[in-house]
């Protein structure tokens, strides 16, 4: 692919929409995930607030730690579904520039 084609793709409506949707999802998600993660070590190492037992002998600390796994699974599933739909926009952006001859590029 030539340089002009990259500029071309960058200017297509499909590419702009792709980038807008990705950013709208990724920026808040990554920030939330990082915050959600870091609160656990800070609270469990430096405070007693997670020391209480909730379900039988399972403590808040364990529940929070298990929540990290569920958070990862849920966000992975949401992202995977969204991103598979975004692939269509990426394909459109490439096609608009290569004039529909996607496979010969």
């Amino acid at each position, binding site marked *: 692919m030539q340089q002009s084609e990259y*500029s071309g793709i960058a200017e297509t409506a499909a590419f702009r929409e792709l980038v807008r949707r990705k950013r709208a999802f990724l920026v808040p998600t990554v920030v939330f995930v990082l915050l959600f993660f870091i609160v656990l*070590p800070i609270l469990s*190492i430096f405070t007693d607030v997670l020391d209480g037992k909730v379900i039988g002998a399972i403590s808040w600390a364990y529940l929070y*730690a298990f929540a990290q796994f569920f958070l*990862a699974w849920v966000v992975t599933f949401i992202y995977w579904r969204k991103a598979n739909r975004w692939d269509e926009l990426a394909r459109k952006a*490439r096609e608009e520039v290569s004039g529909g001859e*996607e496979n010969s*590029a």
Partner: protein
Amino acid sequence: MNVTASVFFAAIVAVTLGITYWASKRNKSTSDHYVAGKGITGWQNGLAITGDFVSVGGFLGITGAIALQGFNGFYLSYGIPIAFLLVLLVVAEPMRNLGKYTVGDVITSRFGTGSVRAIAAVNTLLISIVYMISQFVGAGALIQLLLGINYNVAVLIIGVLASVYILAGGMLATTWIQIFKAVLLLSGTFLLLLLVLSRFDFNPVAVFDETAATLGDGAVIPSDYGGLIANLDVLSITIAVALGPVGLPHVLMRFLTVPDARTARSSVAVASVFMGLFFILLPILGYGAAIYVGQAEISAANPAGNLAAPQLSEALGGDLLLAFIAAVSFATLLAVMAGIVIAASGAFAHDLYTNVWRGGQATDREQLRAARVAAGAICVIGLLLALGAQGFNLAFLATLAFAMAASANLPAILLTIYWRRFNLTGAVSGMVAGLVSSVGLVLISPNLLGESAIFPFTNPALVSIPIGFLASYLGTVLSSENREGHTPYEEIYVRSNVGSGEA
């Protein structure tokens, strides 16, 4: 010598060599060698990532840590699902779209000079070698214990096997050995889990109740690690575990073995399910070991608790199960080792030899030969270092590799993909500062200096990751370089989002 264990170990060696023989007939070009011709499917790659990442430190180390320290031992686990979520969200697809064979390719795709590629290659080599030594040390100790073979001989056996896998079978053999190992490890863990749970009417909460009843509440709630310095040190390791994999070369290289970004995405999703299930279940195994083996027995066999899982399997299933779990650990070592060796040899042969030294002017035959020579050389170097490193703690070496990856590789990779203003000076200063600070701080830490340590923490991540990012930022904003020779950011931006258009 344990006869059953010997038979199982021999079977693992036979299967992995069989896979290597099969793969060797298909390992014809440089692309086949490094990235299996980019023909791995999402499910295959997902399992291979699991096999590539879950090390013996993860399996034996964390089980033992939970058996001896309860919740305090779980901190090495809960960052891992977050790590792979970050891999999925920020690096897997751009890595696939920008890279060819190595991490160096990604950064060079933007800055296009030999110097940045050489530094990226050195980082990959050092990170991989530290990680490799940790695996060698674990492997040697395990084989010595279970088969009664001398540590040096055990290290030699592992080194020779790893070289044979890569020399003959390349990435295709590595991938299938990792898949084989992932299936074995997941089945072994699941089996142990069922055996523990069967004694509690399959109620996982009862395992925690029994633990609290016999060992006290301290085993199920977090407690102080012993003062502010020790606490900050644990925080440092926790952060290294969550961010390290995002910059770990042998993990990132797996995303180059798939045909497109969509497959890279599916492969992390698959890996995240299996790895999450594996790590979330470790407390049951750890507590099972504490209850059925006993903490005194566990720390008598190994002060860090590294043998808790094999001891638990012996307590619940006798010699046969012990031999099986030991063999699973052995397969784990071999698979992780293969992944590291191929990543390190790529940095050496593809980055340093082909592109820096030969200026990209080497024939496919020469590149393939260089890749094989490099794989052999890396194994020999790792092996020699491992012979001298027997006394080092396995977890220390593995978490050090994570800290180095998060400090030296992560800032440069992220900023190359996402920061428009990032430039060559920033990339070089970030990679150098991240590496020098992570390695330098360890050299003056209690691991090496003991009581007279200048740096108080055993793990440098808490300090060296910010240094890596800060140096990348300052290098960029303080330099006024002209951008000739750089690929325009627009091209990187388009390529990382939509691919190069080549299938």
